[in-house]
């Protein structure tokens, strides 16, 4: 498939809005899913880490 020029490529034979609207939204949502997942992972590990540290402190205080 030879497009000739970048302009022709982005014009998509007059279907630019539909083609790029499909590919753009798909890319956006897939990336968004990954970002949300990484944020979720971070929140969980931070919360669990805090809880574990708290438990250790409570145990240490009980010993002294």
């Amino acid at each position, binding site marked *: *498939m030879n*497009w000739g020029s970048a302009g022709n*490529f982005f014009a*998509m*034979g*007059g*279907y630019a*809005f*539909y*083609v790029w*609207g*499909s*590919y753009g*939204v*798909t890319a956006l*949502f*897939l990336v968004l*899913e*990954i970002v949300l*997942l990484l944020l*979720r*992972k971070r929140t*969980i*590990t931070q919360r*669990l*880490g805090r*809880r*574990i540290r708290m438990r250790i402190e409570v145990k240490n205080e009980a010993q002294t």
Partner: protein
Amino acid sequence: MEVRTINWFKYSSPASFYPLAGKLIPYFTVLALVLTAIGLYMGFFVAPTDYKQGEGYRIMFIHVPAAWMSMFIYLVMAVYAGMGLVFNTRLSSLMASALAPTGALFTFLALWTGSLWGKPMWGTWWVWDARLTSELILLFLYIGFMSLKAAIDDPRRAARASGLLAIIGAINVPIIYKSVEWWNTLHQGASISMTSGTSMEATMLETLLVMSLAFWMYTIAVVLARVRCEILEAEGDTEWVAAHLDEQR
């Protein structure tokens, strides 16, 4: 005679699946990226212009894989939910929860790209055609599954109720698949059929398959990452999670 028993259920324990999933994620991520790059190159620079639909048909390369994924993820989710109900394995219901958001996303993308394809080709964004309607019902099933699970506090009861919903809802998948044959409305028939082969050019078909594989690898990577979150949330108070988080520091 020595009898060796293989413990098939070993990896159904969250504690042993968690590190395995972590090891697998990078491989599937790399595969997804490579296949996407190849698929996009083929889709835009190798596949020829369609004689009827011009360049607009290129939406197909994400529309069809997204629609396939939306149905297949639902079936996998229903199987995990069923295994959770029968064997009572904890990991199964966590896997079902991890699959649902990605399935819902692909269902939405199938509807979205279908709408953007339908407007220039059919002249309408939406029509209450059997294929489109049953795909919309699939989106509602995913949303219903996630809401039901989130609405019940006790995790075991939540898994049972949502699992039942997932299994009953699976009836919808063959309906979507067969809808273009059973009701002759606007949506075109299958481009690729198990029985009669394909009705399109070879490079178009190859692109479609590469993009489908790319979506598959993406799904596996994302679902494994999500099931790790689900495991951490479900097992937060156990010794192994504490030990694992200690190692990470």
